[in-house]
């Protein structure tokens, strides 16, 4: 599904991605992990075309995506920080995003799932951080796309919403979607990820299943296994 070859990105003097190669097959949940500042978000933003790499190539479904924009119609993205125009209501925002994409959306089900009905007519500036994140999740999951990218989806969510989120991810996976997820919550990774992609110093340091990682690092606990990788 995704092929990334020799990807380089520098911000000024800081090298963030340093010849990264990565191949991701269709279907399944891939957790992108790594210490703070290891380039997870930069990698995701390269995939989205928001950050323009200095060198290298990215293919999605065998088509180069650099400088293209059409491919984003088949991609859902959840940004790390949910900040929306403050003077719109939740309903208006959802309608606006729907209007921007020539695609069917099933927002009703998701609004019910995350309990957002009482907030639909509220202005976004009056919402709490967790509620904003729920709106963010609705905007991400309401379209039917092959590739779903989630950047820290668990931020600010209460336990119930977190359970719903995990179920939603599971559901999308069963439908054969490819899901990339970055998070620092290892229990989430342990529960839902099929494969782990570990980034360090702008390169892929480890790629494989959770079990393979535990075996390689001789640790039973995923958190410790990841910590072992970082050391």
């Amino acid at each position, binding site marked *: 599904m995704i092929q990334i070859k020799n990807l380089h990105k520098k*911000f000024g003097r800081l090298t963030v991605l340093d010849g990264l190669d990565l191949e991701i097959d269709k279907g399944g949940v891939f957790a992108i992990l790594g210490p703070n500042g290891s380039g997870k978000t930069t990698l995701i*933003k390269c995939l*989205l*075309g*928001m*950050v*323009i790499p200095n060198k290298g190539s990215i293919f999605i479904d065998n088509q180069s995506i650099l*400088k293209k*924009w*059409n*491919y*984003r*119609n088949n*991609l859902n*993205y959840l*940004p790390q*920080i949910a*900040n*929306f*125009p403050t*003077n*719109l209501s939740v309903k208006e925002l959802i309608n*606006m*995003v729907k*209007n*921007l*994409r020539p695609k069917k959306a099933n927002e009703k089900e998701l609004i019910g799932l995350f309990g957002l009905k009482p907030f639909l007519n509220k202005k976004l500036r009056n919402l709490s951080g967790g509620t904003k994140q729920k709106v963010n999740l609705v*905007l991400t999951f309401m379209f039917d796309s092959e590739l779903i990218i989630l950047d820290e989806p668990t931020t600010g969510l209460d336990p119930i919403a977190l359970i719903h989120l995990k179920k939603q991810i599971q559901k999308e996976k069963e439908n054969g979607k490819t899901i990339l997820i970055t998070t620092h919550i290892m229990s989430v990774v342990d529960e839902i990820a099929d494969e782990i992609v570990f980034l360090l110093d702008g390169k892929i340091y480890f790629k494989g299943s959770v079990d393979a990682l535990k075996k390689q690092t001789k640790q039973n606990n995923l958190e410790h296994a990841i910590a072992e990788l970082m050391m």
Partner: protein
Amino acid sequence: MLKILKYSIFDLLRSRWSYVYFFFYLSLGFVLLFLNSDINKAIITLMNIIIVLTPLIGTIFGVMYYYNSKEFTELLLAQPIKRSKIFMGQYLGIALSLTLSLFIGLGIPFVFYGLFKSAAIFDFSLLILVGIFLNFIFVALAYNIALSTENKIKGFGYAILMWLFLAVIYDGFFMISLILFNAYPLDKFSLVATMFNPIDLSRILILLKLDISALLGYTGAVFKDFFGTAIGFIFSILILFLWVFIPVLRMKFKLKMKDF
């Protein structure tokens, strides 16, 4: 692009500041017309205000809108929309909503005063036209500055400096050079120097139409010879177009390489 344009206009039409701006022009128009009771004098006073104020408001609105909608722009960037269309839509949205405030705010008092029956309608139209150009020019310049400056405070600072330079400092240099080199023929120089500042160009364009160029002496005569003719007029409008076109072009160029 039209969708983004529509949303930024709606977004701005909901903001308090668009109305403050609109009511400012509305009350200014009424006060000037009914205190002056002379439409020509009112137009000259208005010109002096428009020429300094529209660029300032355009600059501030442009920078403010860019930085305030940054996160939302990032959300848009992840949608299947071309990058340049997002920013062009926003740019046109700001410029158009400011133009709307100017046009309606000044239009209402003038229509009440009986503009359509007066000969001043041409001068008034020229004034509005220049105001529209200044809106588009300065919002584009502000967007350029904001796109090139990550830091919000710095971006604001540069934008205000840019306005201050074109509205005030440029004229200072212009004057000093005229005084320093007054032994040389300076009419060509002044003509060219005027072109390099959209505010000066707009001012001259209006002044010469108002038949007060005689006050400007010999240079005024040269200016009148140039700007007063149809060719000069068209040429100046063309230069104003360039002042919109070049910043917009740079915006597009800058966007191709920018990381968000």
